[in-house]
């Protein structure tokens, strides 16, 4: 599991690669949260394009970052989920509160 975070015109873009499960979600969460607290971006984009597996631990990760961004006055977007991961997102109903592109 790898996280690369870069800044694009005020948006923090976190590109995740590998598998998101309960075991490695914590490290991802801590890395993203550290960046958000330090950089205070206007918005956060989580790019799932390189994610090869995600279970409901990924939903918890996204919901938690959405809450944090709201608390910071910003917003969250999820980018590039593979079709299979889109099914997990759809099942959770998270697309009602987070923009998925």
């Amino acid at each position: 599991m790898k996280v690369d975070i870069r800044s694009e015109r005020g948006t923090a873009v976190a590109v995740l690669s590998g598998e998101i499960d309960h075991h490695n979600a914590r490290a991802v969460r801590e890395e993203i949260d550290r960046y958000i607290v330090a950089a205070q971006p206007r918005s956060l984009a989580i790019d799932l394009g390189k994610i090869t597996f995600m279970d409901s631990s990924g939903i918890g990760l996204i919901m938690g970052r959405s809450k944090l961004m709201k608390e910071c006055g910003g917003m969250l977007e999820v980018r590039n989920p593979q079709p299979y991961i889109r099914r997990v997102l759809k099942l959770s109903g998270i697309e009602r509160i987070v923009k998925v592109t």
Partner: protein
Amino acid sequence: MEVINSIKFTMPSLSVNESAARAVVSSFLIQTDPTVEELSDIRTAVSEAVTNAVVHAYRGTCGNIELTVKLLRDREIYIRVKDKGCGISDVDKAMEPLYTTAPEEERSGLGFSVMESFMDKLTVRSMPGKGTTVTMRKRLSPNVG
């Protein structure tokens, strides 16, 4: 239940074994030549069941999780995830979407919903103090070619 092939895998309830459980299931299912979607569905359901056992069954301690995978006739896959942990006092409540007893760990409470949605059949049997057994079945599409 006519069993064509089966495998049993026992692991300590360490979170690192969530991916090991998925790998075991994937390796076993290769013989059935599943579609990408079928394999993803089963891997995800197994990941949810094993994660539930890791997170909830042995809180603060470590115990064993037993994963059984069987290939039945007519391309039906049987999966059982069994622990001897604390058990669930109210299974119906635990199976409600978004219900979780571990919000501090950012658990979404969707584990059983995913298992139910991605598999054909889900059964949860639990007894407080004795443990929990999750059984799932899924029939694979006919193998063409």
